[in-house]
């Protein structure tokens, strides 16, 4: 158990540091890559908590799809690749840090006080069970989510499509 705990703490430490890097780096690509790492580490954490299905989904969906999308977005918007001092809004930094810090303090205070001495006992794989529950009891939300995805798909296409009228306007 020693090693398991050490690994966990290590993962957590990495998680935080990569997350910090996501929001602090002045390089857009680095930020995206750091997010990849964050997500990966999160999925490791999930694995450690023996929720492997979710961990896999996270990897597949986020790292596989979402981050790619982000990278596309970064490219399309012609964000300067490499270091960019303009990336942050310096005026907001102090206040933002204060607010973020306060939130952190608040949350951790509540959580630490609320879960004093609570322990998690992991109990092996549960993917099979999850699948059953998801497709039986939660089948209706599940289907709904697919509709949401469909709507998002269509919406994304509609929005991103080059509209002639808009182009005209743009040229004007």
């Amino acid at each position, binding site marked *: 158990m020693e090693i398991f705990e050490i690994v966990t703490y290590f993962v957590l430490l990495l998680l935080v540091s990569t997350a910090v890097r996501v929001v602090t780096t002045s390089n857009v690509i680095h930020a995206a890559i750091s997010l990849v790492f964050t997500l990966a580490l999160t999925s490791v954490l999930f694995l450690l908590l023996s929720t492997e299905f979710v961990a896999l989904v996270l990897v597949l969906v986020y790292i596989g799809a979402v981050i790619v999308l982000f990278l596309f977005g970064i490219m399309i918007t012609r964000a300067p690749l490499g270091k960019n001092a303009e990336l942050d*809004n310096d005026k*907001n930094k102090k*206040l933002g840090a204060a*607010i973020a810090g*306060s*939130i952190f303090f*608040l949350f951790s*205070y509540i959580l630490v006080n609320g879960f004093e001495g609570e322990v998690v006992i992991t109990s092996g794989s549960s993917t099979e069970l999850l699948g059953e529950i998801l497709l039986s009891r939660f089948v209706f939300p599940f289907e709904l989510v697919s509709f949401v995805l469909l709507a998002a798909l269509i919406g994304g296409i509609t929005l991103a499509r080059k509209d002639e009228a808009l182009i005209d306007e743009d040229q004007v």
Partner: protein
Amino acid sequence: MVNFKSTVFAEGELVYTDGGILAEYAWLLVVLPFVAALVITFTGKYLPLKGAEVALTTIGVIFLYSAALMYLHITGGVVNEFFINVGSIGVFDIEFGWVVDGLSIMMYFVVGTVALLVFIYATNYMEGEIRYTFFFTSLTLFAGSMLVLVSSPTLIQILIGWELVGVCSYLLIGHYWEKKDNSSAAMKAFITNKIADVGLMIGIIILALNTGTLRISEILYQSTHNYEKLSTVAFVAAILLFIGAMGKSAQFPLHVWLPDAMAGPTPVSALMHAATMVTAGVYLLARMFPFYKAMAPEALDVVMLFGVITLLAAGLIAVVQDDLKKVLAYSTVSQLGYMVAAIGSGAYTAALFHLWTHAFFKALLFLGAGSVIHAVHSNSMLEMGGLRKVMPKTFATFIIGTVALAGLPPFAGFFSKDEILASFNHEGETTFFFIAVIGAFITAFYMTRAVSLTFLGEYRGHGHPHESHNLMTTPLLTLSVFAIASGWVNIPGVYTGFTDWVTTRKNKIVEYHPESFDLFALSSGLLAGLLGIGLGYYLYQLQGSAETGDDKIKIQPIWSVLENKYYLDHFYFKFVIDPVKINISKAVDKFNTNVIDRFVNGFGQVASLMGGVVYNNFDQNGIDKLLNMSSTGTDNFGGKVKLLQTGKTQQYLMLFLGGVVTISLLILFII
């Protein structure tokens, strides 16, 4: 509606009748003149004699009626009174009516006789004068008013008649109102009388409220039966009534109006200011005599005092007058003093007797004076003289009047004046007796002076005077007869019918009445009269004053005091009339405009000022500003707050989260 009530008072040895139909219709005496006045007013101008015929007819009827009543009374004795209720107020019945008894019948007769003669005289005297018709209207109205007064069975009717004769006097004194002096004289007469009327009014009020009735007969009944309630106020009431009488009967110091009243035409002076109206005061005192005698004998002393003062004071002024009418006017005042003093001494019959004789001979004198004035067109004796030659009839009658006034037998004045003196003597009022004798001397003196200056010596005026028309001399002659004979109705020891004429009341009047001549009084009076005439004749005939019109007896400073009428008018003007008319009234007016009005205006100003303050400071700068501020404030505030709306999402979020965090921290750690 009309409530006829008749009360017959009959008691004692004398048997009285109720007067029958003649008494019942005596109201005609009162009403006829008023009807006639109306008729003259509306038709007078279209009649051949310009309304005089209506007046003459009316007054003729009145004369005949009063003569008939007189006859009835002398033969039978009449006492009756009639009431008409004209309204009730509270417990009081306001009643008019007429009374037919000795006193009133005597007055009817005097008024009727003198008025008739004066009317006849006036038709000629006033011929060609302006407002001839109106003159007769007023004169008729006066006759009516006088009859209202003397026929009155209630105090309220007395008051009405009292004031009505005052108004007629006002109208007639101011007959020539184009001249301010005349209208001022009229006003003076009215207001002086009005002042006295206040006394009368309050006196009547006191009597009425303490007896519960306005009927004279009942008041007299109560006063002779010693009603408690009345006795406490009797003296005050008596004095107040006397103040009223002082005004009308021109007693000192309220006599000032009478000489001025000579501004009126002479027939007016003869009728009103000598024979009838001025005797109203004496009449009132006589009417209320039982009340005075029984309830307020002290008041009679006051009455007597004023009467004596008046008779002397006025007589003295008469000596210095150059105006013939004014001599007679002051003489009238003096004689009224005799009457009032007589009442005061308790000599009821004597006073009325003097009233009776005086009415005739003073009317005679005035009409005679009028005849003279008509002839010479001047009032001043300095412009007369020697008229005996051109105006023999006037001269003769005037002499008769003078002698009657001076009190020589067997003329009327002798008997009446003698009775007054006898009464004084009897009452033991020695001082007053001698003053009255001196008065008689003065009377004789100034009348002799007047006769001397007017008729004797040589003519000093302008033009050619001539004897007056028959219409004027006939009344003079008629009145001479009365001036001689009217005294014969009351000769002590011979015939004393007059006493019975005027004392026909249920409550027989307790008074002294001489059974025979009081020789001391008789001789003193006679001597005084003779001395007066003698001195006058000596000074003005033998010393020749009459030739130049100069007075030889101008003893300063008495003469100027007398000429200025004891400065009484000055006093009144300086200390009463002018202050009221000018200073006080102006002050009140100023007070009104400058204090009360200013206060009111100030109120308005303060209100408008406050309005300004409220409007500018409170409304405009307060409420309105607040209101405007709420909008401008919103505008300003929004203008500042809108800066928050940067459109920058991050800022919004920052604020939102900042708020959330703050609130959360507060909830967690502070609250």
